[in-house]
């Protein structure tokens, strides 16, 4: 047979080229009158012949190791459906679906379950675009997610990096890729990641060095102290600032000990010496404070915290600001509780355990914008009783703003048993209060979905 010969004649046209005599040799004969009919008949025969005789080309690739087994039980079909509807945005919730997806992921993780494999791709795609969900998605996606992420470069953030593999990829990638490798390795092998940083440190430009120091913030520990201490002498100010910011979080560091010396008497210093400047103290003014007070705030913020004084209310304001900074950086719960009692701010409330934060909010007597700010910062999930109490208090407020300001926190943290309180509020809201009705309906919607999620995950 001679398919190419047939194709040649057909392309040029039977008006200009005769059909080669051997076109159908060894295949068949056709009865057709005229060259056009013969070409078409031959095309019918050879087309079928080629199609029937087609065999797949040889494949020389290698089959990769399959994904490891996931021992967690798969979640209920109803739970899976809720997640699918949220991710695909077939249902939309005021304030963003991400909020509820985050709740779904957290609830699923608490129940020790996993989503069905078919939804893992949706989650990986979602968290590639929405960075805030990456940690939760990487955890919930399990071995199947890891296996997929290793096959798709855009999901590299979800793939744990083996130390041996990391070295190779760290040496050759773009900065974004190296950063991803380093961050991933830092999660599983902090020392290995630090060694990787040190291995190329001298050859890196300043911006990269600063970025690499930032990555050490993941899984930071006292083991990083010697390296960070040495980078305080770096020639680039950005690198020094990055190192100082991390050392602020390590109260057992040599730098913290030096700070402790400097703040012994709680007095603002007269001057900054070279050693304090080396430790990263600058002339930057803290909001509302003078030059010397600002120095003290920075020093206190980087110094180890001592025992909590009996009465914080008599302390100078700049001292409290400095202690607050230190308590937040060092995540010192005793100090945070005491500071919240004396002078509650959203930042401090956000760092408290839920029970303590709730107590702070409950102590507030007026429902105003300040109250809404504290409530918005209050970590969840909130217990049932507190949730209903909050809805009732917001409803009794004279101003509109508090509900709007705290909306995202309400949608995220309210216990679903507060739903009747929200619904009754909607019923009693006059139809002309459109904005409030819409906000409340969004809240009720979110609570309904949360209720389903909670019912589907037995705890």
């Amino acid at each position, binding site marked *: 047979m001679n398919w190419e010969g047939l194709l040649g004649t057909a392309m040029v046209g039977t008006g200009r080229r005769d059909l080669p005599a051997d076109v159908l040799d060894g295949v068949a004969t056709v009865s057709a009158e005229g060259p056009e009919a013969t070409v078409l008949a031959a095309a019918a025969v050879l*087309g079928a012949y080629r199609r029937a005789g087609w*065999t797949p080309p040889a494949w020389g690739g290698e089959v990769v190791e399959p994904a490891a087994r996931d021992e967690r039980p798969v979640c209920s079909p109803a739970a899976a459906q809720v997640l699918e509807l949220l991710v695909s945005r077939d249902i939309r919730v005021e304030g963003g679906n991400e909020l509820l997806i985050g709740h779904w992921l957290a609830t699923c993780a608490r129940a020790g379950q996993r989503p069905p494999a078919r939804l893992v791709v949706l989650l990986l795609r979602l968290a590639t675009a929405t960075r805030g969900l990456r940690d939760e998605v990487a955890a919930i996606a399990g071995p199947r997610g890891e296996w997929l992420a290793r096959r798709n470069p855009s999901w590299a953030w979800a793939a744990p990096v083996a130390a041996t593999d990391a070295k190779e990829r760290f040496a050759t990638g773009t900065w974004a890729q190296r950063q991803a490798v380093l961050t991933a390795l830092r999660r599983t092998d902090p020392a290995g990641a630090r060694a990787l940083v040190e291995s190329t440190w001298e050859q890196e430009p300043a911006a990269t060095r600063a970025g690499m120091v930032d990555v050490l913030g993941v899984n930071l520990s006292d083991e990083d102290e010697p390296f960070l201490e040495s980078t305080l002498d770096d020639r680039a100010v950005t690198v020094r600032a990055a190192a100082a910011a991390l050392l602020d979080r390590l109260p057992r560091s040599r730098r913290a000990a030096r700070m402790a010396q400097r703040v012994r008497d709680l007095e603002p210093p007269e001057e900054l010496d070279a050693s304090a400047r080396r430790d990263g103290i600058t002339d930057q003014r803290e909001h509302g404070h003078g030059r010397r007070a600002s120095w003290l705030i920075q020093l206190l913020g980087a110094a180890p915290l001592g025992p909590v004084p009996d009465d914080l209310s008599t302390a100078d304001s700049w001292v409290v600001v400095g202690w607050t900074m230190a308590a937040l950086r060092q995540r010192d719960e005793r100090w945070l509780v005491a500071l919240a009692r004396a002078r509650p701010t959203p930042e401090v409330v956000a760092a408290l355990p839920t029970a303590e934060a709730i107590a702070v909010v409950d102590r507030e007597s007026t429902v105003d914008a300040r109250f809404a700010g504290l409530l918005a910062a209050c970590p969840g999930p909130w217990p049932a009783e507190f949730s209903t109490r909050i809805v009732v208090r917001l409803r009794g407020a004279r101003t509109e703003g508090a509900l709007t300001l705290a909306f995202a926190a309400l949608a995220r943290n309210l216990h679903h048993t507060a739903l009747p309180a929200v619904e009754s509020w909607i019923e009693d809201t006059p139809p002309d209060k459109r904005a409030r009705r819409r906000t409340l309906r969004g809240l009720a919607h979110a609570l309904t979905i949360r209720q389903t999620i909670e019912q589907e995950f037995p705890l």
Partner: protein
Amino acid sequence: MGARWTEARVLALAPDAGSARAARSLARPGRWSDLGSNDSLVWGKCQGSARDPYQVTVDLNEPAFRCTCPSRKHPCKHGLALLLMWAAGDGSVADLDTAADFAAAWADERAARPTRRAGEPDPEARAKRLAERESLMTAGLDEFERWLFDLVRQGLAGVRGQPYTFWETAAARLVDAQVPGLAERVRSMGSAVHVRADWAQHLLTHLGRWYLAVRAWRGRAGLSPASMGDLRTVLGWPRRSDEVLAGERLRDRWWVLGLRQDEDERLLSQRTWLHGEHTGETVVLLDFAAAGGSLRVPHVLGSVLDGELALYPGSAPRRVLLAGDPTTTVGDGLPVTDTVLAALDLATTWQAGNPWLDRLPMSLGAVTVIPGDDTVLVDRDGTTVTLEREFDPWPLLALSGGHPVDLFGEWIGQRLHPCSVAVDGELISL
């Protein structure tokens, strides 16, 4: 009844290759008694495994089969064997004036059945309309042949320079000639020649198949009912569903293998692929709705429908209609699977029966999904098939996790379009 049938025409009625083989070995007078035929009937008794011989009758007009054997196949091997002996014309099946009692009784029963409802137009008018349609189609296909000849005479190299109306006009003429199926194929070629890298090969292959349809139409008097069914599908001459429901039926436990919906600017279509547990047949239910309309609710993937289907005339894999309400149970994965090579062999067998087929069902067993520029499936023998370019492989990869899976899909132009995958005994739509 005119001339005796050829052996090929008889065997074309066989529901599968196994039946054809069995019928051949049974087509020896030794096992038979009371053989005879007249203008419209052929009959005989065949000694089978039961005590009483099976009574076999064939009505040549439709043709229609009747056999007292318990086989689920239709026609069964006895009916086919009887026709083979009759077709051989060696005198073993005598021409008789009176039919055997059992044959005559069945023929009477059939004649008594209300074949025409009251109010239906008289047969004369119907025959006239039919003749008009056929001559319209003949004229349209003659014109289409001249269009094909012009194309080949001037050469295919120039067609990419033709405006889209070149294809549209040819298609519109075919629609006028009541050949909408062929019209659709011509219309879609208008974009294929611009989109495809292998457009010349593609075009020439399809020109050959279109020309084959023209030639087949001209020779339709000699076509088997199955080939005539295939030809009518290509041309787009539909069958009325009551006509199909009155024809051949097949009862089985039908596994729902895969669902696929397509949409273009005119039409929504839905294909439901079914596999018969006992008959081993793969068949397809087609539903259509105008664009923007709504389709019949699909059958649940992975379920098993126990019931009777009415078969459209044509070659395997056949189009079917649901006859009555089946009972539904839940299945367990894919009922049968093949290696890639076995599936390709089956596809070739089907293509040999119907040269116009371009969408073939494939059930592949234990294939591993390999992502890449072209995602491929590798079976245990290391043979691969390539997936359609548009197919998003990641959900399939997530479901399989690199483990071998059973998968059902449609084979179109040497690429597989996956429809469903079996994971832990559950069929999941892709």
